[in-house]
């Protein structure tokens, strides 16, 4: 019985971790749809931004934000 209970707890923990994970991904995807990102020519890939800077000779304007919290 005790084993079953522990197993249930472990499953619950795994389930909640998966839910949190999904939530973080959803929040990130939601952030990527923010209107400001489509208003100007934002690049969200750092390597691509540096490549673009190399090609064009333009300086990078880097804006740091987060999606996991408001």
């Amino acid at each position, binding site marked *: 019985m005790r084993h079953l209970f522990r197993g249930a707890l472990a499953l619950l923990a795994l389930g909640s971790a998966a839910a949190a994970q999904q939530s973080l991904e959803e929040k990130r995807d939601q952030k990527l749809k923010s209107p400001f990102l489509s208003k100007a020519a934002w690049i969200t890939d750092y390597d691509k931004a540096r490549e673009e800077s190399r090609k064009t000779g333009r300086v990078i304007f880097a*804006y740091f934000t987060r999606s996991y919290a408001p």
Partner: protein
Amino acid sequence: MEGGALLTDAFVEFSKEYVLYCNIMSRVPGDKHQNLLMEKGGQGFPYIVFLDAEGNVLAKHEGARDADGFRETGKKVQAFLEVRRKAETGGAEAKLDYLIARLDLGHVKVADAEREIRGLGTPSPEQKARLDEALTNATVLETVREIQSDEGAEQAGKKFYEMHKAGKPAPTSDDAVQAYWILLMDCAEEKKDAAAFEAGFKALKAKFGELPQAQKWFKEKEETLKKLKESK
């Protein structure tokens, strides 16, 4: 900012001169460049820096978070890049200009700058004046960045007070001026030094006296100054 300044046409216009990069810290395992904020010197959000193609920080944006503010920092970045270009092929004079620009942007510690200066020969009087100004601003900002506690703030105030009493020039950059005089005034009040307190009061009044949000602070300090003078 995302719902305001970054949505404006003025920002879009400003952005045409730059490569816009948005780093989203997601905490999603596997997402790339999740530590970039810290690597580039950021400690909180939002954080804005100008980078070159190699990812070197050219300037941290500390001014107004709107198109005009970004443009101002952008101008400093362009000036810095120009000086850097000249230093790559120029002599000691160009290299000293580059050092001054690095000091202004916080790219070099004062102690390291002083070591570099020794290897660059004798500066012209004009360069010497600019160098001294840059060193003063950088010294103040370095001191302020190291403050971790009330005791640290007190120590910084004492240091600025001693600089002032030794006749050293006050800083001139906006961010250094405020911290320098406010901390110095706290120390001057503690030491009941009305003259030093008044010097700070006048310097800040000249620079920020028109700000509506600063009126209460100036009123309080005016009272303190009056008491300091009376207790002489």
